[in-house]
């Protein structure tokens, strides 16, 4: 039997490393082997341990802890896996994977990311072989055109078009760049691909390099992804050793070198021209477009930049044909899309679905709906550049056009689900806090504009909003949208505009009534004790860090609102539900 532990960053964070150590110890002396895999995408069930017989999955154990190692080892030794059935994934949770269609993630969590053999055994590099043994660069571009693949980084620009532009751009030397500077809060699709299936990225990039005529390629990964960098470097080394990367790949005259460049943590470097500046060793600030990178990119040479997920689809398209890819999806959005489903959702994790599913299907059928039986309120797509979509629009299909029509965007795949307890003004403020900090400072609209939006939202959430603030915010949003230099600034108003569009009443409640309907904004909350319910247990007054609660034993307590700092500890500690927020 073969025991495979899911060791992506998330699995490791949940304790997969400890499970690995404990299992190694417990299984010593047996003929069971222990291996690793990347991330299967079920964050809510980590750590995940798969037990295989050859290639057959016998059992998938979830939420495994090091303490379970003994039981698992015993079951393995006794060849009686029913003994660990209590750890097995439930039918209900299995739906999470069953309802997905995986292309970019097809090997994630299933193969060993640190072994090229594991990739090769699964048919890896066949697409590259196919390309190099008979397809011209134009053929490749044509196939991608047929597939309808669009940039998965967020903009959704047709991939073939960019490749073709770079191919046709004049210049001896051309560059291929992979944008792995995944920065949206709550997005981790690219990290999972690199950590779990690094060769898929390399293979996709090699095919793209061949198509555009580049012999040098870079992967720009954020430095906050150390495991991804280690695994990708290992994959590069192994691929180079096997003649799959470097000079005369697979014995042909196609040469391509691949280098990793670790980004220093600036969100704006996810913007392609800022990324290029950073790659050149300069301050990460966007350039003016035109000229576009296809014309003047890295070192002013023609360059093509695609996102990790885009590349991860390429080998599948080559192997299965563009038509197979375009058979999935909607009229103007083909194939599948990976989402990082997070927030107040029951089953959060990586979800790859064919375009055309509705948000409801993703959130309810795959994600299992809202945690703790609360009401769904909104879902934020596209991170700080995106927008929120309210309950009424849950039946919107996942499609570039349909999502844009709501005011949100497809984005790179962040899907943050919010429940009734989320204040939408505060949510917008959170994202503006992010963009303000991540603005590079170059253009006026973004540098000062996002700051002013953030200040205005802060005033509103603190109860200092005034009549006319919504109108001023809207005016500011529109100005920034049309005036900012790069995508970061141009899309920064989206969270504000969509929350104003769908949740204007919440803004008005903050401004006019000085109330936060969701009860999230601390400055607008008032904690009171219901004397009917209070039993005088004194627990709250003991817990209160500022001594704002008074009252004798067995008598109703009172909160002095002038002293109260609204930390909510009294409410948490009360066993009688006597503390209320007003």
């Amino acid at each position, binding site marked *: 039997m073969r025991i495979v532990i899911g060791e992506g960053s998330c699995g490791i964070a949940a304790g997969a490393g400890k499970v690995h150590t404990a299992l190694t110890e417990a299984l010593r002396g047996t003929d069971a082997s222990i291996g690793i895999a990347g991330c299967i995408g079920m964050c809510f069930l980590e750590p995940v341990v798969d037990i295989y017989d050859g290639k057959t999955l016998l059992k998938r154990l979830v939420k495994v802890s090091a303490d379970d190692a003994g039981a698992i080892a015993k079951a393995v030794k006794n060849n009686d896996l029913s003994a660990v059935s209590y750890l097995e994934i439930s039918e209900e949770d299995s739906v999470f994977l069953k309802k997905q269609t995986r292309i970019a993630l097809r090997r994630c969590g299933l193969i060993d990311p640190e072994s090229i053999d594991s990739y090769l055994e699964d048919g890896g590099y066949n697409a590259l072989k196919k390309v190099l043994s008979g397809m011209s660069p134009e053929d490749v571009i044509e196939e991608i055109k047929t597939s309808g693949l669009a940039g998965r980084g967020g903009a959704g620009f047709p991939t073939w078009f960019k490749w073709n532009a770079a191919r046709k751009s004049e210049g001896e030397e051309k560059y291929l760049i992979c944008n792995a500077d995944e920065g949206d809060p709550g997005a981790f699709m690219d990290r999972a691909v690199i950590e779990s299936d690094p060769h898929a990225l390399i293979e996709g990039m090699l095919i793209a390099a061949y198509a555009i005529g580049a012999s040098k390629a870079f992967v720009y990964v954020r430095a906050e992804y150390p495991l991804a960098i280690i695994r990708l470097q290992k994959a590069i080394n192994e691929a180079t050793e096997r003649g799959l990367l470097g000079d005369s790949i697979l014995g042909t005259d196609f040469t391509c070198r691949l280098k990793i460049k670790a980004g220093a943590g600036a969100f704006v470097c996810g913007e392609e021209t800022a990324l290029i500046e950073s790659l050149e060793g300069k301050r990460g600030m966007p350039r*003016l477009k*035109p000229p576009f990178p296809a014309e003047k990119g890295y070192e002013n040479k023609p360059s093509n930049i695609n996102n990790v997920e885009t590349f991860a689809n390429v080998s599948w398209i080559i192997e299965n044909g563009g038509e197979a890819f375009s058979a999935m999806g909607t009229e103007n959005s083909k194939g599948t899309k990976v989402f990082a489903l997070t927030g107040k959702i029951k089953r959060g994790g990586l979800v790859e679905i064919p375009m055309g599913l509705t948000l409801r299907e993703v959130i309810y059928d795959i994600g299992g709906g809202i945690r703790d039986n609360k009401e769904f309120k909104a879902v934020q797509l596209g991170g700080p550049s995106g927008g929120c979509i309210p309950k009424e629009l849950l039946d919107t299909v996942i499609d570039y056009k349909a999502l844009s029509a709501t005011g949100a965007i497809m984005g790179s795949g962040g899907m943050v689900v919010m429940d009734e307890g989320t204040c939408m003004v505060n949510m917008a403020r959170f994202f503006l806090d992010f963009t303000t900090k991540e*603005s*590079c400072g*170059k253009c006026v609209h973004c540098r*000062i504009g996002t700051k002013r939006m953030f200040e205005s939202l802060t005033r509103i959430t603190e109860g200092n909003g005034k009549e006319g603030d919504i109108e001023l915010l809207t005016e*500011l949003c529109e100005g920034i949208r049309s005036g900012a230099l790069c995508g970061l600034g141009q899309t920064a108003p989206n969270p504000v505009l969509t929350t104003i569009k769908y949740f204007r009443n919440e803004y008005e409640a903050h401004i006019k009534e000085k109330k936060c309907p969701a009860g999230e904004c601390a400055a607008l909350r008032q904690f009171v004790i219901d004397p009917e319910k209070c039993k005088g247990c004194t627990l709250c007054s003991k817990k209160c860090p500022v001594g704002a609660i008074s009252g004798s034993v067995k008598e109703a307590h009172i909160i002095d609102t002038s002293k109260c700092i609204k930390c909510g500890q009294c409410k948490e500690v009360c066993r009688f539900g006597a503390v209320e927020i007003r």
Partner: protein
Amino acid sequence: MSDTVKLIIDKKEITAEKGDTILLAAKKNGIEIPNLCYLKEMSPYGACGMCVVEAEGSPKLLRACSQKVSEGMVINTMGERALKARKIALELIMGDHKGDCIGPCSLNCPAHTDCQKYVKEIADGDYKSAVKTIKEVISLPASIGRVCPHPCETACRRQHVEEPVSIAYLKAFAADEVLKNGEHILPEVKAPSEKSVGIIGGGPAGLSAAFRLIQQGHAVTVYDKMPKMGGMLRYGIPEYRLPKKVLDTEIAEIESLGVKMINNCTIGKDITFEEIKEKHDAVLVANGAWKSSSIRCEGESLEGVFGGIDFLRAAALGEKPAIGRKTAIVGGGNTAMDACRTAVRLGAEEVSIIYRRTRDEMPAEDIEIEEAMEEGVIFRFLTNPAEILGCDGRVTGVKLQVMTLGEPDERGRRSPVPVEGEFITLELDSIIIAAGQKNDPAGFEMLETTKRGTILADERTFATSIPGVFAAGDTTNDGASIAIKAIAEANEAAKFIDAYLDGIEIPHKKPVISEREVTDDMFTEYEKHPRIKMPQRAPEDRRNDFTEINLGFTEENAREEATRCLSCGCHDYGHCKLIKYADEYCTDCKKLKGEYHKSFKEEKLEVILRDQGKCILCGLCVRACEDIAKQGILGLVGRGFDTVIKPEFRNIDIKSICADCKKCADVCPTGALKIL
């Protein structure tokens, strides 16, 4: 393939060179597209967002500085969307701009005298230029420099370091210096316009208007009821503050320009208003406010009761009013101070000030109060006349109601409240009521008046209800005020009279400017250097006569004092691209105000002065240093809102590597960089 493309910019068909940007192609055809971060010698940068234009078929605005022209393009540089985007860019920049376009001294001066400029000229020893600068606004600098309550100094930023710059006395100094040498700085007078203006009243307002209008080539006649010109400057301000010789010289200067001056001419008696109107193409009424206000107190008609300005006028005329041994002056303003100190000089043995509030609330200037105290005047605060006592129709004393301070009024001034039943009696030979002054409408009945009886004049144009008749100074609207306010009004009125005579209209537009909000802690870097005191005659000496009490600055004093100026007004105002656009787009500078970006003043580069508060991060200096000067010393440091332009490697001795080329300051679109 052709090397040109045809396109349309602002409905104008244009042939442009291929490869030109929209901005360049427009410029070549006389269409200016605004920009703040662009220079054609450098590659486009795209930071300011001012050059955005609309292109037919493009949902997005295009940055004209980088977008190349293409065949068939239809560009609109002044479309609504583009204008909106520019306006918001300017509002964002101005809301984060920490700088004064104009110094607060000049802004607070009702006449907007360019104080910073003439103070600098005095510091440089160039007194003639200083007087020339002052005369752009004030025709009587030596006189006004002596008497002005100087709102300029009230606003002076130097007080955040220690004390304001002695701006008013510096003005008097410069004027005296020039006059001392027998030199007269006179403006050019245009060729005769064949138009004439009659001015009623030869005080500060009338004389100022005469000075302005004569320069425009108009024939100007000033009619005044008193024996000599000068108005309140002559008959309201005592000799010891303003020697009449000084005033005479300055009035003679105005007369020398060709102004006809007619004295002893009272309207309605010697000539009617109608006659003046008939005689001239335009008339300015500037007859001042010469009637003392009453305090509505019993006994006011007794012999020995004088009105404040009546008393001062009598003294000025050498009439020696009979005030006796003991006198008291009712009031707390500058007229009260002038009156009490005049009384001292006329030989009164006991002179009191009766004022119903305390010293803190006194509207008179501090220095006047101090000097009066030094000269032995007794201040009876928190008292108010209840009744003027008399015997046989003559004043014998005053019954004073004791007062206390109540709640502050809407202006924050605590109002006096009587303390019930508490009175003091003061024995007196005379009493002078200096509780304000009023205009006299006699002879001007045909002009519409305000509720308070002053002549109604338009606040912008100073036009009255009769076309061609204008009014300015104490006689109008809110009534009596300070001389510089009357001058300010007269200057403006003169502008509108000139326009009226030329048959043109001056459009109404207040220029957009940037003003800094300051606190004391912003001035800690300055070394303290106290204000130089005006040398004065000793109190015991000066109280005996009417000779001027101030001895005047020495040249050394004046130049030293002038160097205390912080030069708050921006050196670049007038050339600044930013404020030009802000004004053009009617930017509301305060609309998008919030936290300011980090800023500092740094003189590390030795050759230039850098003021980050005015930096708009256009990056031109950085690029000039790198691309033109080939130095690459400057760079952007920090991120987002707190990005600043600094030498990138901060520990390097910049002076040793800076080539002193000053290119950075040359290209700066605002006043953030200044060549030292």
